[in-house]
């Protein structure tokens, strides 16, 4: 039973390491329904990790039993294996352990490092900036800087920051749109959706899919925040208001183009603007449910492959 399981998991892992993320990154439907696409990306990430580690584990523990739970129990209780243990079993076990530790370790490390940076940013902001009530409602901080910038720092006490350059560039309705967009990020905890992909991109620099997945999630999170912001905006043409704000913020930074790997090209920004100016047809309910069902199935598949042989 076990070799077949290991093979099936291996095939699934290979699919999730390359063709599936590539197809999802290339697909055009995600911009019509960013939320469903975000769910799919999370499922791809989770199922990918589960199946590659599962495949290695199942193969490595094969001599100890006929199903993973059984073999695992025999292994941790130091029982003798039923079949002779070859070198490749040890290699697979070691790889599974290393990979699991790396993925979880990098995730934890990335989380801790991010939390520390945020704490420092927050302390700096609280020192440099007086809370202002001039721009748009509530706890918006006004940072004195000519570049038009808006951002938020997530956390238990989230902060929303507008630069004076941004306030100078935009009118009241546009500022409201910017603030609504940032609030959407905070309310839906988009930083948590992005965190695993930031971490795994760092953990698996050799895997192009990790890059693709990260960029895909980053762009979708922005589109989702645009969609949520639109719902709370009044005015004659909120879509256009938000689009104008985006273009002003993107173009006004004059020469401040980041040159590192994190540079944002015109690509995703143009997609955002285009889908604001001409609203894409929402995904039909059937297609949306199909996407969500595939995401759920994707997580269940490796789980079942790992556990089912113990039952049947």
């Amino acid at each position, binding site marked *: 039973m076990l070799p077949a399981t290991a093979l099936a998991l291996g095939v699934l892992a290979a699919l999730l390491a390359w063709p599936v993320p590539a197809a999802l990154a290339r697909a055009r439907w995600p911009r019509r329904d960013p939320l469903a696409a975000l769910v799919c990306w999370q499922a791809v990430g989770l199922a990918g990790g589960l199946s590659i580690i599962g495949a290695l584990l199942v193969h490595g523990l094969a001599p100890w039993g006929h199903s993973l739970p059984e073999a695992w129990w025999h292994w941790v209780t130091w029982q003798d294996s039923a079949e002779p243990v070859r070198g490749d079993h040890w290699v697979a076990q070691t790889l599974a352990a290393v990979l699991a530790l790396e993925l979880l370790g990098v995730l934890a490390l990335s989380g801790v490092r991010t939390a520390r940076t945020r704490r420092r*940013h927050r302390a*700096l902001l609280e*020192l440099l900036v007086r809370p202002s009530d001039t721009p748009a409602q509530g706890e918006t901080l006004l940072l004195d800087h000519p570049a038009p910038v808006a951002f938020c720092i997530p956390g238990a006490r989230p902060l929303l920051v507008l630069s004076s350059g941004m306030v100078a560039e935009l009118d009241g309705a546009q500022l409201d749109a910017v603030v609504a967009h940032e609030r959407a990020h905070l309310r839906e905890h*988009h930083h948590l959706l*992005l965190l695993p992909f930031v971490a795994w991109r760092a953990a698996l620099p050799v895997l192009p899919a990790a890059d693709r997945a990260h960029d895909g999630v980053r762009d979708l999170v922005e589109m989702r925040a645009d969609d949520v912001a639109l719902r709370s905006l009044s005015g004659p043409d909120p879509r256009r208001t938000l689009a104008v704000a985006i273009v002003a913020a993107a173009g006004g930074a004059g020469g401040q*183009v980041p040159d590192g790997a994190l540079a944002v090209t*015109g690509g995703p*920004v143009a997609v955002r603007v285009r889908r604001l100016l001409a609203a894409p047809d929402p995904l039909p309910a059937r297609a949306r449910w199909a996407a969500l069902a595939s995401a759920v199935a994707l997580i269940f598949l490796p789980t079942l492959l790992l556990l089912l042989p113990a039952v049947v």
Partner: protein
Amino acid sequence: MASLGELERTLMDRLWAAPGPVSATELQQQLADRGLALTTVHTVLSRLEQKGFLVHDERRPRRFTPRATREAHAAELMHEVLGQAGDRQAALARFVGSVDAEDAAMLRALLAGGDGAGSDAAGAR
């Protein structure tokens, strides 16, 4: 009753404005109209020091100096926010990243009603 953050800001403002190192007693005197206890000033100063905003010298009584100017702190923050420090995740939700001049022109053309040259720049990646 001012909040702790407000007090920290006030003390830093004083220290940034001061020509040289300042002791806690001097700060308390400068802020006499607020009626702060000396222990309060000390508490706030040590918090600021823990956060890395102040250094003190070895005299008695200790005198405090800001570690960097206000402008340097602001520049450091913006540097990271603009993504040049390579740690974008921390300030995740920057509204829009900067784009180069060509892309900016294309975006403006989009707004103006043109269909935007290179409409597949976004799809191909």
